[in-house]
């Protein structure tokens, strides 16, 4: 395999007494998506800021697209695109003017910057809004414009800091599709997120970060299997049918299903057909079903398994945000 597009070794960074990064190693081969998963204040944004040359690390080293983030910062900036949590577009410029400005600052040249801007507005369904001031845009449109700005120079490495935070489900889906399209075209992406779901959908590998450390790393499937994967949750119509339900479903699980307050929970061994099989068995046993659902592990589940505590916001977060 060629040199990794993103490679970080032992990155540390402190703000005053708070250790935002406590020795982080990251690696993403070219053309893949690396997901950084963690709660607010875990150090995700600090890592992105260091990798995009906005912040010097206290210790450790990192190379992006073959350039050292400290020594070759100036050359590296031509190779990266950054879209942030706060949709950094100029509200008092139109969508077109925003992209054209970014293109010229990437030194594309006057005419190529204009052409590239039109092309991106088209691709991000913003052509109709191209000549409107960005302050009239909806949240989803701003995020799209922000992402388009990050793509102006066709950077080989893209950093997306919680790109879907605050978006409605439809805009979120649109944005995820656009990110997938970039990776299909060969771009390497580092994406931070707070939702396992998003990391699962997009990332080839996930690094789980807590208190400035990588506490787990692997493919989404590896992580989910550590957490226990998907669970089947059955709400019974009658409490006194609990033993019957447990007997009926026991053959589907490695361990005996647990049942409390009329809700039966069990790990789902087989993803396909698991629900249908469970329904058939419960029906055959004469157990009434009020509700049945597959629950995916959440960020909290991951954290409880990996760290023993829920993904709560740590106090350092506020500090990190205050200085960030």
């Amino acid at each position, binding site marked *: 395999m060629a040199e990794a597009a993103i490679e970080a070794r032992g990155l540390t960074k402190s703000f005053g007494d708070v250790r935002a990064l406590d020795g982080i190693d990251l690696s993403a081969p070219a053309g893949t998506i690396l997901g950084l998963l963690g709660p607010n204040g875990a150090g995700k944004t600090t890592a992105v*800021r260091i990798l*995009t*040359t*906005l*912040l*010097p690390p206290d210790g450790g080293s990192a190379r992006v697209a073959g350039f050292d983030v400290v020594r070759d910062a*100036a*050359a590296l*900036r*031509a190779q*990266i695109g*950054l879209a*942030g*949590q*706060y*949709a*950094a*577009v*100029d*509200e*008092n*410029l139109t969508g077109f*003017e925003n992209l054209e*400005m*970014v293109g*010229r*600052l*990437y*030194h594309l040249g006057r005419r190529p910057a204009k052409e590239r801007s039109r092309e991106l507005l088209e691709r991000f369904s913003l052509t109709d809004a191209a000549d409107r*001031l960005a302050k009239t845009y909806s949240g989803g449109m701003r995020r799209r414009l922000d992402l388009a*700005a990050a793509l102006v120079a066709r950077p080989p490495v893209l950093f997306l800091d919680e790109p879907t935070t605050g978006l409605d489900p439809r805009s979120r889906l649109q944005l995820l599709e656009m990110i997938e399209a970039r990776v299909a075209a060969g771009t390497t992406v580092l994406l931070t997120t707070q939702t396992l779901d998003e990391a699962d959908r997009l990332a080839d590998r996930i690094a789980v970060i807590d208190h400035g450390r990588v506490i787990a790393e692997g493919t989404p499937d590896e992580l989910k299997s550590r957490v226990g994967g998907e669970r089947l949750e059955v709400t019974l119509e009658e409490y006194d049918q609990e033993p019957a339900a447990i007997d009926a479903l026991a053959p589907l699980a490695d361990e005996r299903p647990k049942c409390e307050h009329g809700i039966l929970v069990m790990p789902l061994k087989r993803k396909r057909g698991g629900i249908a099989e469970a329904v058939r068995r419960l029906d055959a046993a004469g157990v009434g079903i009020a509700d049945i659902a597959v629950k995916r592990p959440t960020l909290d589940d991951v954290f409880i398994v990996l760290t023993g505590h829920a993904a709560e916001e740590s106090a350092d977060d506020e500090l990190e945000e205050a*200085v*960030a």
Partner: protein
Amino acid sequence: MSALSYAISDTAVVAQRNLRRIPRQPDLWVSFTIQPVIFVLLFVFVFGGAIQTPGYDDYVDFLMPGIIVQTMSFGGFVTALGLSDDLRKGLIDRFRSLPMARSAVLAGRTLADVATNMVALAVMIVVGVLVGFNFSSSPLEVVAGIGLLLLFGYAFSWVFAFIALNSNSAEGAQALGFMVIFPLTFASSAFVPPASMPSWLEAFAKANPFSTIVDATRALFVNAPAGNDVWVALLWCVGLIAVFATLSVYQYRRAVSS
């Protein structure tokens, strides 16, 4: 292209961006031009009658150069507010992640703010003439005076750029700016002759660079005795730009919003 030509073209792109924004933010520059007009009316009609200005037939001739210098320094607030806004909205982060010259965001900002200062200067001159101000120098001197005022405004944009980069918010930058500007402008020769002040304050007012700029402007606009004021004023402007541009760019490179 060389680093220098990139620095120039990047600065031009940022300046163009800021110039485009000016007509789209009328609240910003309307308040910035109306406030000094109110000051003129206040000083000419309310305080003017009580202020003795030996050597001047009319207080308005003494006042206008001083109040215009103050207006130019207030132009720094436009710089500070613009930069604070860019910092807060993450635009400075975006700029810093781009392969553009490190000086361009600030240089483009301060350059565009010269345009706002030109508008304010034009309004002040019109208002001044309407309330009875007379230029009594040659047209060439008037033009030189206008050039000096714009240079001074540009210098103050750099001072305020530095203030904004070291403040956590626009409000913080504004408060700090007022703390710098009010004592400097009022304890100077801008509104009253320093000779009328207590001796300790008179000494401060005479050493105050604001007085030097005001006296130089008076020399160029109403033929007041100048001495070396014009040259010293130029030196002050160049010195302020050199010091604060260096400090601001340094601050931008390393610590902005870290």
